[in-house]
């Protein structure tokens, strides 16, 4: 993953705030989408909200509020 090209682009990003900040925003979005997938999968396999919350390191209320809406198994 860390080929020469990656090193160059990473170095370029390090001192360009515009790119760095855009990357942060994209990372948050990416994390949100992956979280939705993973939480859905966990629920599908019968995980409780408490188990999911523990794995994510957040409260049960937080994870329930964020993900329960729109899910039939709530």
């Amino acid at each position, binding site marked *: *993953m*860390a080929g020469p090209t*990656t090193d160059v*682009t*990473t170095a*370029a*990003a390090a001192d*360009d705030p515009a*790119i*760095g900040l*855009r*990357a942060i*925003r*994209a*990372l948050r*979005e*990416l994390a949100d*989408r*992956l979280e*939705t*997938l993973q939480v859905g*999968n966990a629920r599908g396999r019968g995980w409780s909200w408490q188990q999911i919350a523990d794995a994510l390191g957040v409260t049960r209320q937080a994870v329930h509020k964020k993900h329960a809406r729109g899910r039939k198994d709530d």
Partner: protein
Amino acid sequence: MFERFTQEARRVVVVAQEEARELRAEQIEPVHLLLALTGDPGRGGAVLRSCGLDHAAVRSAATRAGGPLDADALAAVGIDLERVRAAAEAAFGPGALDPSRPEPSGHIPFADGSKRALEESLRALLRRGRRRGGAIDSGHVLLGVLAVADPLVGRVLLDQEVSPGTLEEKLGDSSAA
């Protein structure tokens, strides 16, 4: 608002709305005007294409750098979005990382940047024209889009290695700075 626009310039505005709809955008952004301009038969489109900015090139640059998952920015911090997407799809099926949003139906509003771009296209006409009764053509629309310095349009141009100044010059509007 569009009474001073030529037929081709009106067409650009109509196509921009279709571009926005296809890209599931909530508003018509300046980049959608730029996309529409790439297919314009008039001088705006001709200047873009002469610089290598065709529809496919602009659309690919816009989706790469414009979406909420900005692949270019992620690459700059060492994350290969395509690999993440491939992993997500391997586990959860095609399109897993890209939840489908419904295509917006009905009227799509102009973003502020696009409103300003259209105002700037009138200004571009007035700056050039001593003739009364001149009309805003697709070249003026392109000048308007360039004038508002939209960040995404800027990144698309940068990606395609085209400077706004070159486009302005080709449109005979090097005074626009």
